[in-house]
């Protein structure tokens, strides 16, 4: 069952990372569809695109943007971690690398979030 992807009770951080990876994957997929919709709207003229942008790119939606950013950063960094492991490397250090991954995600997210904040809030 699909809910089993998100079963974390009684499990280790590794399972949490897996669940989060799946979740962010789904979120990013939805975002990708939205993104393509936006781009497609250009075919109907510049106005419709700018209208859509004005709906979403504004201070009120900043929290969502930040969450989306977190999803992107986590999925990316964790993805690299998985590639390394799945090629059979550094299995023994998997706990350390997992903590490191969470750390890097946090730092990258905070810094990028700060930049984004500056950009939007001007």
């Amino acid at each position, binding site marked *: 069952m699909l809910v*089993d992807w998100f079963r974390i009770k009684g499990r280790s951080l590794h399972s949490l990372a*897996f669940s989060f990876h799946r979740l962010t994957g789904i979120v990013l997929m939805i975002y990708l569809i939205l993104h393509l919709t936006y781009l497609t709207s250009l075919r109907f003229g510049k106005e419709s695109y700018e209208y859509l942008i004005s709906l979403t790119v504004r201070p009120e939606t900043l929290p969502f943007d930040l969450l989306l950013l977190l999803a992107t950063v986590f999925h990316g960094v964790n993805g690299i971690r998985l590639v390394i492991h799945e*090629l059979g490397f550094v299995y023994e250090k998997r706990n350390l690398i997992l903590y490191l991954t969470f750390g890097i995600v946090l730092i990258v997210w905070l810094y990028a979030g700060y930049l984004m904040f500056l950009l939007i809030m001007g």
Partner: protein
Amino acid sequence: MEVEIKVRRFNGEKSYWQKYRVPVLSGMTVLDALLYIKENIDATLSFRYSCRMGVCGSCAVKINNKPRLACETQILQLKDVQIEPINNFRVIKDLITDFDDFFAKHRIVKPYLIRKNDSYEKPVEMIQTPKQLKKYYRYSLCIKCGACNSVCPVSSTRDDYLGPAIMTTVYRFMTDNRDEGKDERFKIVSSERGVWRCHFASECSEVCPKNVEPAKAVQKLRIKSIIYEIKKFFK
């Protein structure tokens, strides 16, 4: 001292929680407690058990949300005790789950030495240095209790996935220097239902009661599969 034990029951139709109070002594395991319930309180409670020393693999159950061997879990080290059947296996009755499919998959992967000059009548002593033995020995310690499969998120959504325990067995034979059947097994594990489905949640290694490290075995098997596929491509 008394401990309250909550057990997930299933009688073929409905599933429910039941509570029992069990007197505990030092050294008592969860299996001892279950046996106490069966013999003194409720004889209908059903569960599997056998060796009570952690080698037969019968008694894997979910204790406080974590799959463990009931016989190896000291009850006094737990605060509350909550026992359920392990996930990803169909429940037959109470804590007893269906392992037929699991063992059927075990058969598929040819878990035995494949040798060209295998003679039943005239066996010979083969040479295997302690170093060669050590390469696969850890993976031969799997007791097939199903704990790893029960936490594998891929096993939970794909019935055809071989699962960590079975792939560990494959890796065990693939790294045995006496074996000559690697190509046959690659055909099975380098597939949709094999190594390519693993997404390294690595929870299997976290719960393995024998520290067999199934997650490691699967990743190593994946690398071997990659090399096999590349070689096949250029052939």
